[in-house]
């Protein structure tokens, strides 16, 4: 019993390593926020490309679907290796400039940027599917009303469909963000000194997991409030859609399960307004 508490909850050791652990967590936060923001944007681009109308644009849709399928279907770790390996090799062979192959922008290391790229590529694909569910859940009549007023497909998407879709998918997007945040720990394997790596280094040298537990607590400090926020948003949506109004109940059950949780479920049930 003593051993267990000492192994996981050695507060002295936590105190000694507080600085490095916090520093590592700060890197985790930076990785998460930057990758999360980029994935949100990239995912929306993919979702919109996937919805482009007409026969001439079919190849764009197919390519987009192929991209989404591919990146949802391969492990992030693998993407991470492929991205970092390719970029560093390509700059070594002078195929691409060094500043791109070994990016050290904004004072961050190359592994940080490799991580941002891999997380954005992968989570963009997840989030594209979430957006798509939201877009498809907007009743068809909305598009028809917009088009009947003379709006183009693009205008209808931009001013009518996407704003409604985004509102309904904020909770599942937040869930994906939580998953992304936890997946930033994978970037440690290519050399980023984020919180898990810092804790692991301490464990290796001290034969004690307390620094890792400290890291876990820091994660929970962020992810639990986010999970509660998701709950609140879902409850609010359900209250609103109770009147047969705008918001389809786009909520997933609160879930902070691993990266393999994949995209949010299928299209959220519509408010039943769509006409046959």
């Amino acid at each position, binding site marked *: 019993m003593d051993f267990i508490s000492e192994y996981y909850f050695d507060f002295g050791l936590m105190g000694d390593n507080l600085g490095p652990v916090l520093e590592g967590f700060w890197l985790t936060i930076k990785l998460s926020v930057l990758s999360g923001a980029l994935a949100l944007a990239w995912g929306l681009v993919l979702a919109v490309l996937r919805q482009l109308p007409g026969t001439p644009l079919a190849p764009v849709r197919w390519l987009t679907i192929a991209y989404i399928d591919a990146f949802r279907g391969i492990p992030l770790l693998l993407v991470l290796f492929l991205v970092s390996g390719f970029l560093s090799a390509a700059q070594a062979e002078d195929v691409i400039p060094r500043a791109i192959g070994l990016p050290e922008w904004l004072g961050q290391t190359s592994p940080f940027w490799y991580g941002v790229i891999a997380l954005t590529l992968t989570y963009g694909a997840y989030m594209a599917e979430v957006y798509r569910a939201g877009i498809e859940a907007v009743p068809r009549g909305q598009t028809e*009303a917009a088009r*009947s007023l003379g709006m183009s497909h693009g205008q209808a998407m931009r001013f009518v469909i996407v704003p409604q879709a985004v509102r309904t998918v904020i909770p599942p997007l937040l869930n994906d963000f939580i998953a992304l945040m936890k997946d930033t720990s994978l970037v440690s394997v290519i050399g980023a000194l984020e919180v898990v790596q810092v804790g692991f280094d301490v464990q290796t040298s001290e034969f004690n997991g307390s620094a890792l537990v400290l890291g876990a607590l820091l994660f929970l400090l962020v992810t639990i409030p986010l999970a509660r926020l998701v709950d609140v948003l879902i409850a609010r949506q359900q209250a609103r859609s109770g009147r047969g109004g705008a918001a389809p109940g786009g909520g997933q059950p609160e879930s902070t399960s691993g990266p393999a949780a994949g995209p949010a479920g299928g299209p959220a049930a519509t408010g039943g307004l769509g*006409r046959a």
Partner: protein
Amino acid sequence: MSAEAHSDGAAANGPMLKLVDVHKRFGQLEVLRGVDLEIDRGEVVCVIGPSGSGKSTLLRCINLLEPPESGQIFLEGTEITGGGAKQGVNFVRRRVGMVFQQFNLFPHKSAVENICIAQEKVLGRDRAEAREKAERLLARVGLADKVGEYPDRLSGGQQQRVAIARALAMDPHAILFDEVTSALDPELVGEVLDTMRELAEEGMTMIVVTHEMGFARDVGRRVAFMDGGVVVECGPSAEVLGNPQQARTKRFLGQVLEH
């Protein structure tokens, strides 16, 4: 108030809208089997018929929400079907408004924003101009006090009147009404029909798919009875409703008017 919409002289003499042998199918189902119809400027034509007869599809073909498979549609003398499909779409959508059974207001926008958005993005009106027009139209449909209200705070009848104002804001030459009172509670039907009646009196060209026989009789200049994807009978409202010539029309009216 909307008279300026009718000022462009093109094809002022010919029919406003002319449909020639329009066909539409959904997979195996042939919904329109050759519809011919002419509608004059300022005319109100009510389209009646049993459900599944193709009334709504007809309206949706007219503004190319559902492009017809074959046949021709002429709007103010210009063919909107056939080649140059995209031009046809733009041509008709700039001139013909539509009001839907389910209102289809944009739920994330207030009443006035619903009316402004297309004015600004499609017609390029500036914000103040669009807003002024929107407020004027809301007052006209009796909703001056609901300017900033969101659709989910409005009754069905109020939402539908906002939808009518939204269509009017684009200065349409004609408006299509697709069973616009069918989703309303009975006590709210009157306010929407009154708004439409006023529009008709002001000379708006209207094609009204409806189950409101009273409205068809009083406001419609002509009534077209559709069944099985064709116009079975079309003529002055009083004649078609009062003294139908076709057996199918008689049977339908018999069923409808019994209640």
